[in-house]
């Protein structure tokens, strides 16, 4: 692919721009924390469960710290204080902390402060090790039962009831699914807490809870053994609880997570600062837990027109990649999102889609990429929609997508029926079998429509990156450059959950993940 469409220098320049575009955001990230990051810290120490009124204990504790104006020291610090107060368990620590008049607790003597930090660090190190051990178990299973060849066929289940989801996930796996995604209940991303326990009611999907993750992964472990083929699990972390969900997912050995640096901002009207800070911590966790992230650029072209906005996908991928690299993610973990979404009534759409997918491959040769099927222009005529999906299957195998969401012929109507998944899997298997290696059969003409379109889109993407570079991400988002959606820096949900770090801010997990401890 090297040399195709654009020069390596042009691509390197895009990466430089992305780095400089994200620089100011990394300042912001360095200086601030959020309620969700702090809740994640507590979860990692083992604080689980819910209070009397159903609110998670981590929320009770962090809300209290925030109300007392001391969250800026970091929940880990207060957790340590609680331990020193004699807490016998994380739960006990929560109780002690929520009971004590925090604001009155001044700093300890310097040596005690240091000791506290050392103790807490030691515990954090142990918890990180435990996480790593859990992840290692997943990797063992993967080695024992290797996955099928890419593109990994990604199927969603979305009954609302985790037990029904398990049934359907097993069925999908038996029919050939490589990755199961449990779609979240509508608007969960706007909840500033992670629901608790196994859930059986949801709209448009099932709540993402740690227990649901555990139940599903357990079922898929079992199914992987039966099928002698490792079946991956994914869920969604973008939203107000990005890092907490990342933690739950890591702990429960999920394989992938939908995790985008900007999705919450654009599509859920979550505050920018909040999102940028949360995504960083969540990605650090993904990096450590060997979770493949899936970004959401495909969403841009469900609102904006896929032909006109093709360049926004590319520009955003460079930015998302940079955010990811700076959070320690490796290329193999980057399921950068894009999709087959151009209006099928336009001429030469297969050329256009190939052009776009090849351009993405060209720019990100080592990333698995996550390819989405047509959704917006799907018709209720299931036979047409099926044919339409088949072409996306072709482009996926042609451009060696690592992860391919299978299109559903009933996309325009309802969340998939069991049979819809079966139909999609059977056709995608056929396409993958039939067209595997097709990319090696042809040389793309540099003077053709595919190449010209790719160069044009890349050029527009560069302009957009230049604009972001010049005026800043905030301004570009403000102008609706991504997905036709405009957002303000101080607008949206969750800004009140952003807290400026105190100079003595303490987060041993971050230290460990950043390699500072």
């Amino acid at each position: 692919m090297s040399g195709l469409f654009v020069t390596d220098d042009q691509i390197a320049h895009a990466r430089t721009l992305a780095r400089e575009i994200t620089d100011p955001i990394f300042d912001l990230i360095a200086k601030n924390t959020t309620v969700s990051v702090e809740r994640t810290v507590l979860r990692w120490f083992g604080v689980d469960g819910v209070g009397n009124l159903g609110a998670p204990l981590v929320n009770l504790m962090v809300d209290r710290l925030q109300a007392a104006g001391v969250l800026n020291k970091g929940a880990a610090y207060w957790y340590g204080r609680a331990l020193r107060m004699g807490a016998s368990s994380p739960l006990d620590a929560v109780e002690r902390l929520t009971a004590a008049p925090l604001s009155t607790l001044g700093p300890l003597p310097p040596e005690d402060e240091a000791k506290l930090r050392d103790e807490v660090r030691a515990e954090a190190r142990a918890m990180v090790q435990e996480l790593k051990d859990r992840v290692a178990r997943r990797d063992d299973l993967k080695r024992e039962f290797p996955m099928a060849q890419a593109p990994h066929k990604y199927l969603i289940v979305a009954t609302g009831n985790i037990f029904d989801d398990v049934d359907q996930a097993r069925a999908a796996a038996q029919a050939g699914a490589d990755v199961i995604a449990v779609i979240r209940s509508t608007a969960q991303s706007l909840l500033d807490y992670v629901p608790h326990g196994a859930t059986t009611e949801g709209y448009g999907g099932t709540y993402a809870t740690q227990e649901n993750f555990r139940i599903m992964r357990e079922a898929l472990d079992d199914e992987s053994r039966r099928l002698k083929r490792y079946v991956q699990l994914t869920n969604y972390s973008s939203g107000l609880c990005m890092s907490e969900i990342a933690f739950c997912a890591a702990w429960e050995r999920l394989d992938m997570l939908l995790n985008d640096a900007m999705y919450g901002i654009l599509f859920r009207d979550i505050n920018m600062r909040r999102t940028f800070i949360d995504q960083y911590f969540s990605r650090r966790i993904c990096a450590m837990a060997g979770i493949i992230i899936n970004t959401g650029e495909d969403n841009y072209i469900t609102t904006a027109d896929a032909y006109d906005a093709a360049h926004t996908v590319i520009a955003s991928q460079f930015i998302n990649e940079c955010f990811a690299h700076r959070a320690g993610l490796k290329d193999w973990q980057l399921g950068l999102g894009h999709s087959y979404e151009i209006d099928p009534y336009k001429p030469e759409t297969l050329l256009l889609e190939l052009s776009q997918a090849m351009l993405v491959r060209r720019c990100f040769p080592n990333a698995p990429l996550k390819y989405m099927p047509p959704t917006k222009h799907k018709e209720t005529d299931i036979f047409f929609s099926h044919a339409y999906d088949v072409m996306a299957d072709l482009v996926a195998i042609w451009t060696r997508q690592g992860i391919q969401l299978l299109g559903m012929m009933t996309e325009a109507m309802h969340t998939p029926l069991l049979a819809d998944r079966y139909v999609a899997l059977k056709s995608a298997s056929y396409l993958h079998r039939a067209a595997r290696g097709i990319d090696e059969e042809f040389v793309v003409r540099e003077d053709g429509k595919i190449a010209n379109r790719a160069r044009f889109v890349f050029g527009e993407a560069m302009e957009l990156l230049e604009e972001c570079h010049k005026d800043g991400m905030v301004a570009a988002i403000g102008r609706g450059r991504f997905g036709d959606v405009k957002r303000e820096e101080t607008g949206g949900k969750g800004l009140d959950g952003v807290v400026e770090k105190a100079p003595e801010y303490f987060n041993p997990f971050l230290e460990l993940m950043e390699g500072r401890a």
Partner: protein
Amino acid sequence: MTTHPGREKHFIRAYGDRRDDGVIQLSFTLPVTASEKAKEAAKLFCQKLGLTDVKVAAIERAAEHYTFFVVYAKANVVLDYAEIDTPEIVIKKKSFDELNAFIEQEIARRVVVFGACTGTDTHTVGIDAILNMKGFAGDYGLERYPWFEAYNLGSQVPNAELLRRAKEKNADAVLVSQVVTQRDVHKDNSRAFIDEAKKQGVHGKMTLLLGGPRVDHKLALELGFDAGFGPGTKPSDVANFVVHQVLQRMGKEQKGTAFEGAPT
């Protein structure tokens, strides 16, 4: 559409390969393991639907305990097509320019509309298609009409807030979009909207419209709206409808007048 003077009978059946052969296609899943027995069950299933000549074409192992079937069979259903009612069109739909001129003359003030995707639904593409400048399929959105004053509040707007804001501006119409329909969440939310409208005392005063891919006029009426608009709705359909409603509320047009493009 053919009209049937004096309601002559017009019997129709399904057309497979010949007139009145009644052939239809079905597919469904049964929670059983693929086998001859499963095939027999699929056949019986279709027979219980009153189908005859049941050909269970495909028996696919969709999963260990699920079998997917494709069936062709004959439905012995006969319909009298002449009996199916559709309203007769009385008034022709007005174009963009005609409608603006008409509002200027007959209503003599800008028509105010508010719209949003309410509840937890975030699918704004549909309501944007109706309200935003750009419109839909080459048909301008209401914001583009000089004689409309259109407010689009976006997505995930609480019902109460949409109504409150509409009331403040004395809106003529409120447009609610509902796209997620799983387990009838759109109906629940729509009912909640109507309850709220009653509470705020605007029900029956403002024109309340419901729209979305699984919405139809009948459903919307049942839920307490003044009209429902389904897939493929054009902004101009909505614009025309709202203007007729305003005229009717002004007493300038008879209630229930049928016109072209009216929701059915």
